[in-house]
């Protein structure tokens, strides 16, 4: 049983116009085996929250903590956060030319576990995980994310999620750009990971359609850099009906903020 506690987190991003504060006091606790959906309008800071937790160099923490079983992730380098138990499934996974998926996955697994995986079981695990995600075995020999379609990239993210077996996963709009079949396959992967390892999930999304496949225990509305409302799965249905307008600052429209 693990706990991720985000405490009063303020963070900024460097822009051409100078530093701009995006997160303004985000607070949230997630336990193992819990699935939290984080919903909100464009530009509310959901992705910033995801990247700040994962340690992207573009984002600066102004104050606050993110404790994973008491250890502050925000004081660690990105790779140390992953080793401590965090996984970020990115909205736009990065292409790394010339590095094969196999080599990359094995390197990551070795670093995460502190020792190289036994070749025979590793190959078996990899093949099984790829088969579950309906990935062509040829993917293993291709460069990381290079030339992958949007759907293929998302499957590759979930493949890593399943193989690296972290304690908490942030899924940053993993549902975007997926057709219905791909959405189902990717969701099954996330559900398997939760079932197998008791993963705690922070699922960032605009839309409720992924919630049909990955059932949230708790739904949050995120607006203007903080959590503004928390409820059960019924809150997602309510948002589907009413939209986010009521959570936007006075006079603002969603497009103006984005």
């Amino acid at each position: 049983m693990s706990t991720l506690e985000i405490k009063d987190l303020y963070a900024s991003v460097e822009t051409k116009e100078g530093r701009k504060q995006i997160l303004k006091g985000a607070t949230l606790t997630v336990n193992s085996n819990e699935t939290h959906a984080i919903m909100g309008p464009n530009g509310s800071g959901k992705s910033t929250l995801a990247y700040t937790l994962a340690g992207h160099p573009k984002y600066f923490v102004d104050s606050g903590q993110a404790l994973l079983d008491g250890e502050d992730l925000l004081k660690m380098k990105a790779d140390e956060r992953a080793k401590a138990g965090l996984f970020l499934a990115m909205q736009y996974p990065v292409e790394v030319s010339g590095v094969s998926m196999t080599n990359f996955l094995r390197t990551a697994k070795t670093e995460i576990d502190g020792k190289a995986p036994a070749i025979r079981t590793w190959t078996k695990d990899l093949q099984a995980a790829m088969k579950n995600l309906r990935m062509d075995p040829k993917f293993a020999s291709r460069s990381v994310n290079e030339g992958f379609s949007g759907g293929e990239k998302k499957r590759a993210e979930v493949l890593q999620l399943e193989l690296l077996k972290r304690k908490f996963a942030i899924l940053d709009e993993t549902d975007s750009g997926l057709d219905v079949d791909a959405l189902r396959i990717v969701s099954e992967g996330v559900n398997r990971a939760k079932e197998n390892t008791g993963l705690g999930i922070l699922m960032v999304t605009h839309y409720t359609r992924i919630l049909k496949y990955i059932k949230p225990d708790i739904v949050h509305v995120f607006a203007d850099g903080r959590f503004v409302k928390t409820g059960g799965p019924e809150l997602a249905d309510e948002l589907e009906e009413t939209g986010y307008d009521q959570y936007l600052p006075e006079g603002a429209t969603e497009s103006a903020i984005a």
Partner: protein
Amino acid sequence: MAEQEITIPAADPNDPYAVPAAMPSSADNEPRSFKVGDFAIPNRKQEDWRYTPVERIEEFFDVFTPSGRTKVSVTNIDGTPVDGTNVQVTTVDRAQAPSGTVMKPNDRVSAVEWNSGDRTLVVSLSGELVQPVLVDVQGNDAALDSLHLVLEAADRTHGDIVVLHNGLARLAEGVEIVTGADSHISTTFVQEWEKGSKHVGNQRIHVGSGASLRHAVVTLGGDIVRIRMDQDFGGPQGDLNMLGVYFAEADQHVEHRTMVVHNYADCRSRVVYKGALDGKGAHSTWVGNALIKPTAPNTDSYELNRNLVLTDGPIADSEPNLEIENGNIVGAGHASSVGHFDDEELFYLQSRGVSESEARKLVVRGFFADLIDQIGVPSIASHLMDVIERRLARGESADIQAVLEDK
């Protein structure tokens, strides 16, 4: 498409744009000559020498008596003797064909090389080679030496040849490569010189009609390595693929100049050079010229140079030049870049638990891997990846090195 007979009018020196330039190119107006005196002593004000630290290679500017200390052996890549039916190794007078038949020297250092020494080593390939030929060039000391090498392939030959430079040397080297019609040849030149070495090279390359040549250059060691490569085609439908890999470290100067000339119809050329630079005073230069003559309709050419700067301090010069004298071509593209690590790539790898130093290594390995794969000689490719791996592991603990070598 039938071959067309086209007469090129002579250029008027007073009005070079009145007719297409007849000399190799308007940018390259150096003479072609075997005589040293036809070329001025190089200095940085001359276009061809502006990036070269000429003061560090002054000994290559005047004819010298070669030490003869460089040892050259020709075997199969696995060390066994070559099969005389497919591979013939002879030594001829430098002035005796095929020596001196592929173009003429094009700068001071290549004319000096031609006139310093009187023998030429000729490796002649024919038929279907079972395994790659290895020409091992072993430097034994820093005494000034010269080597003139001819690699020739008869019509319809299929074969690979690897020239390995190692040891300590100060070498002026001339290489002539001539491939026959419809041959498919690869030549790979590896520079793994020891510290203190200098290598000033000139290659003249003639690709046969309907032939393909994969020409690779890998420069990993030597205080100064400067190689100029001039090429042309012997007929239509030639295919030239030039690959380059280099890794310059502190105070090393590594310079490659590729001069591709499209003089026949329907030929294709690709030039892809990639380098990494590490440490203060590391300097690389790539100059890629491509000239498409009026006689070369349907030319398809592309050149690319990428430089990955690993630390603060190195300098990478990258200069593509295109001169297109024919409007009827498939393509003449170029790309050139000098850059640091991509933060997004590093973050992606780190977010999967890969430490920053290991992430950098993965990226550098990836940067070179596809190019090294294309060399097409597996034992050489894996050797080169090992060398690059060891470079990257330098300065790390023995434990980490052991893990890396285990991979």
